[in-house]
């Protein structure tokens, strides 16, 4: 019985692009969480424009992870958990850095390339629009 329910739920979860599926009945519950797969969903802050080494006069423009959705911005995936990243955190490609809630559904914001979080630009619980910079970042070499 449980096994059948499990496979049904798994099938359902795979057929959607939901990050998280929770099934509850009486006092038992089943909880799925999708492992982050890097997708198009993330930053237009990368890839970085090629740095011009010879020209030191102009500092490189800041790089950002930008929002690809409209919604409410969260630093962590629930109120009682620590933020995904803080200033100085080095993240790998595809790693969640924040979550955005839209229409009661939470979606992770993923880093599309290895990078270091330099500065968080939006406070927890604030609303964000499409294309809005969320984090200022610095690029990290691929082998982090």
């Amino acid at each position: 019985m449980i096994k059948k329910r499990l496979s049904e739920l798994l099938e359902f979860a795979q057929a959607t692009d939901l990050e998280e599926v929770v099934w509850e009945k009486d006092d038992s519950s089943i909880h799925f969480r999708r492992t982050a797969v890097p997708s198009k969903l993330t930053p237009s802050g990368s890839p970085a424009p090629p740095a011009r080494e010879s020209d030191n006069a102009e500092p490189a423009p800041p790089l950002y992870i930008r929002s690809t959705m409209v919604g409410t911005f969260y630093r962590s995936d629930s109120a009682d958990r620590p933020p995904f990243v803080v200033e100085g955190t080095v993240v790998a490609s595809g790693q969640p850095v924040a979550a955005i809630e839209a229409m009661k559904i939470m979606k992770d914001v993923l880093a599309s390339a290895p990078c270091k979080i330099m500065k968080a630009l939006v406070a927890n619980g604030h609303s964000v629009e499409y294309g809005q910079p969320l984090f200022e970042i610095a690029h990290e070499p691929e082998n982090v």
Partner: protein
Amino acid sequence: MFKKILIANRGEIAVRIIRACREMGIKTVAVHSEPDRSSRHVQLADESVCIGPGPATESYLNIPNIISAAEISGSDAIHPGYGFLAENTYFADVCESCHIRFIGPSKEAIEKMGDKAAARETMRKAGVPIIPGSDGCVSADDPELPKLAKKIGYPVIVKAVAGGGGKGMRVVLSEEALVPAIQMAQSEAKAAFGNGDVYLEKYLEQPRHIEFQIVADHKGRVVYLPERECSIQRRHQKLIEESPSPAMDSSTRRKMGKAARRAAEAVDYVTVGTVEFLLDRKNNFYFLEMNTRIQVEHTVTEMVTGLDLVKEQIRLAAGERIDYDRDDYPLLGHAIECRINAEDPEHDFRPSPGTLTQVILPGPPGVRVDTHIYPGYTVPTYYDSLLAKLIVIGDNREQAIRRMQRALGEFVIDGVKTTLPLFGKIMQHEVFRKGEAYTDFIAKYMSGPPNGTEK
């Protein structure tokens, strides 16, 4: 009444809706794509939210981002304008489930009028005259087909069930051409709408396009307003609209208006909508379709009635009632509208995007311009090419035409090609001036370059 309305549209209609809201004391939220960041509607609204990149499918048609924008801004209603999501039943449904009022009719009404074959059946039952045709879809291999076409009477027209904008349409003059025309229309419809179903209808020669604005409240009161004539079209896109129609007498107006009212009542219509008819030379009229939204040309009706239809629409969506109970609304004059598009009429109306180096609007008396353009504005390539609606009112048709000529002469838009010169020519044309223009006017008199140097 609503406290804050999100406008899920752009361009002149977004500006028009924001103006109505401001006068009603309602806060506004503009949504916009990245290239529309400095658009007029964004400047005028109380708040704005960027909802996606340029392509409409990722921004103005992006339902999750639009609903999210309504939620984060605390909007209690969404005005869809025209086009984009205005007649999308799924969107109306999502709004409802998120407790945001969709400013328009019920999703059932949109659905019933959106499927043309179903709408025809609803109209037949309601006693609204419909064009003789097939009951539902036809297929090319039906042995009864030639008999049916003969009964309808040639010429007949093949139309796509899911159609619009002239796609999937074929006029058939005689029996030999029938089967190939149906097959071609089916494959064209399949490619354009993903649905290859087609039906047959009697083809009317030289019809006029006459439509009635209706206004309806939640209590079932439906009022019709004076007709608009929109016979000047190019490939089923309206170019000029006027009210009243030069062909209308008061008894036909009353008959058609009452039919329009029955059409709206048949789907329990609420807010504002338009019932479109074709009128033949013998004053027979036939239901064409119902548009379940505010239309581009609502302005000519506003000019001749003095009503503010966008405010009416918002009021009625909020559950208020119609407080005037008259049909045969008195006419304040004769109004004409020209749709100024960023298109090159000398080169087959090809789109002409670019940056406007100069804009000078014509002025009063009797002139209204609904627009979002300004000097320095860049016309994006992603959306329709409407730049401005130029509307005039005169005591009679002759005076309105003269006023339109004067206003067209004052209107300056530099930087892109526009349809302004075309309207100058139409206003001078004897057939138009006599009020004898039918839906074939543009194809017959205005196609091809003016000096005949190109063929």
